[in-house]
């Protein structure tokens, strides 16, 4: 048992430790229960869900690259009703077991975000908070454009804020994070999750076509980690609300970097898909690292980077 006090408050999401899972990389938790006790984690972020079901993008949706992957899933989801029907009971139980559940809200327009959030409010009492995905690179007309400028991001948060009293987290695209973070904070966001995948391209040099079903896809994994750490550091200096750092965390030391850069929580993403016990391993590695530093409370290292 660790001697380090690990619990953190991610904008009203009270986590027993800082380790969370990134949306789209952890199913909805249940898929991992045969590998480890998911309730050991601080929180999980569920797959993005819209008011109505989405079919997502055609295959192929995946390409492996050096030290990472690219995906073009396109937010395939069963709609809020289908999601709650399939996972509601499990997720309510997970919350009771001590692991917070963050539901991710997807939409192509402000009205679609509102519709999804209203349905979540009605049907998902187990949700400790809502992560608004304004930055998915893989959907045609919403997502990335929605969160592309501080003004656009502010508009989404302003529209959604009156629809829930529960914490709102905003998931940011990997650009202009300081300005966009400030805009979200000003409109009442409780926390920020960053970064989403970085738009990239991979071309098959034999067929001259994209290796995925669309020209662009989201890059994730260890190759984006230093970029994500830098952006968390920039955002942490721009706002007072807490940050959930995401991007290529494979080890406890990777997670520690995010905390030092100013993140309050750290989400494990691509690593879950490679090693299903990555999240609990990273948690124990993080605890061991904190102990090795003589830390009594994990808050001592949040934002402690000396630069």
């Amino acid at each position, binding site marked *: 048992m660790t001697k380090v006090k690990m619990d953190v408050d991610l904008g009203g999401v009270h986590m027993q430790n800082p380790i969370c899972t990134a949306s*789209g990389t952890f*199913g909805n938790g249940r898929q991992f229960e045969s590998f480890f006790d998911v309730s050991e984690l601080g929180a999980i972020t569920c797959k993005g869900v819209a008011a109505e079901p989405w079919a997502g993008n055609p*295959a192929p*949706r*995946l390409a*492996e690259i*050096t030290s990472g*992957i690219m995906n073009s899933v396109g937010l395939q989801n069963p709609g809020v009703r289908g999601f709650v029907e399939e996972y509601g009971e499990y997720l309510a139980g997970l919350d009771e077991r001590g692991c917070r559940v963050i539901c991710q809200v997807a939409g192509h327009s402000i009205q679609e975000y509102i519709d999804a959030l209203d349905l979540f409010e009605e049907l998902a009492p187990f949700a400790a908070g809502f992560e608004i995905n304004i930055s998915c690179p893989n959907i045609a007309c919403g997502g990335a454009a929605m969160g592309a400028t501080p003004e656009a991001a502010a508009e989404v948060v302003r529209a959604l804020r009156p629809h829930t009293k529960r914490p709102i987290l905003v998931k940011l695209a990997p650009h202009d994070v300081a300005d966009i973070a400030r805009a979200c904070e000003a409109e009442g966001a409780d926390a920020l999750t960053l970064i989403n995948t970085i738009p990239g391209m991979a071309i098959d040099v034999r067929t001259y076509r994209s290796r995925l079903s669309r020209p662009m896809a989201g890059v994730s994994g260890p190759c984006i980690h230093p970029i994500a750490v830098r952006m968390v550091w920039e955002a942490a200096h721009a706002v007072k609300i807490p940050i959930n750092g995401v991007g290529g965390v494979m080890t406890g030391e990777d997670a520690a970097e995010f905390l030092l850069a100013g993140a309050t929580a750290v989400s494990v993403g691509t690593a*879950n*898909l490679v090693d299903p016990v990555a999240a609990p391993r990273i948690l124990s590695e993080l605890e061991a690292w904190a102990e090795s530093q003589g830390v009594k409370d994990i808050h001592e290292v949040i934002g402690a980077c000396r630069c």
Partner: protein
Amino acid sequence: MSAAAGPKLAPYTLVWKHEAAEDIWDICLETEGELVQGLKPGMFVNVAVPGDPSHILRIPLSFYRTDPVRGWICMIVAAVGEGTRRLCSLEPGEGSTLLAPLGHGWRMPQEGAMRALLVAGGVGAPPVYAAARMLQARGIDCDVVMGAKSERFLWKEGAQALSGNDSGAGYESALSRGGFCEVFLATDDGSYGYHGFTTGLAEELVGKHGYDVVMTCGPQPMMAGVAKIAAEAHIPCQVSMERMMTCGFGACNTCSVQMADGTVRACCQDGPVFDAEEVLWK
């Protein structure tokens, strides 16, 4: 380790290997017998291969035979990509971890089924081999079509073992066989057996014999062709789909299969074996 039912993570080591055809390896991995017990024909495992930390994904692989007592999983691997080349170059005693059991395998045909047609293209052969053994054990006769681009890529040992002319894989002879099995080999270039695609041979066979079920695994255009032949002859057909996969257990939604009813299913979790009529072929 959690007690919840489902796939598990376990260490493995390579026990033996030999080159079965050009750049095609017959390899045997040893892992926990309990996991192997759960592997039914048509299911798969997701294998981490040591030696290159810059390639982070596991490799999803089917198998032709398992031995739960020894914890053995026997597979045919084409060393075509960076990861499969690394796997096939492992030496006995080397290994990493794997996830198993994954997916849903072949379904037993309806009661009273007497004769099956099985069609394999390329590295679709191992799960088709496993299907034949599953059906034979139930007393169902199997006609197995195995095709490859050229003779040098044919898994002849598998064909010999299935047709009962095997001398190499000694453990096979200990199996009590129920149904009869006849193997038909085809090559695209005519260098061995039937000259042409497996679908041509399958069509001839369907014209001659009455089959109660068709099962197929191989390139998607081949399976689409087999599915069409089966549908026209009103024979139920199961297909084992192949997709780029990441996790292998339903967490990432990357291995989508479009269904005829407009829905999208996960190849890894809902498949890889589907009823052919459920799949949207295009």
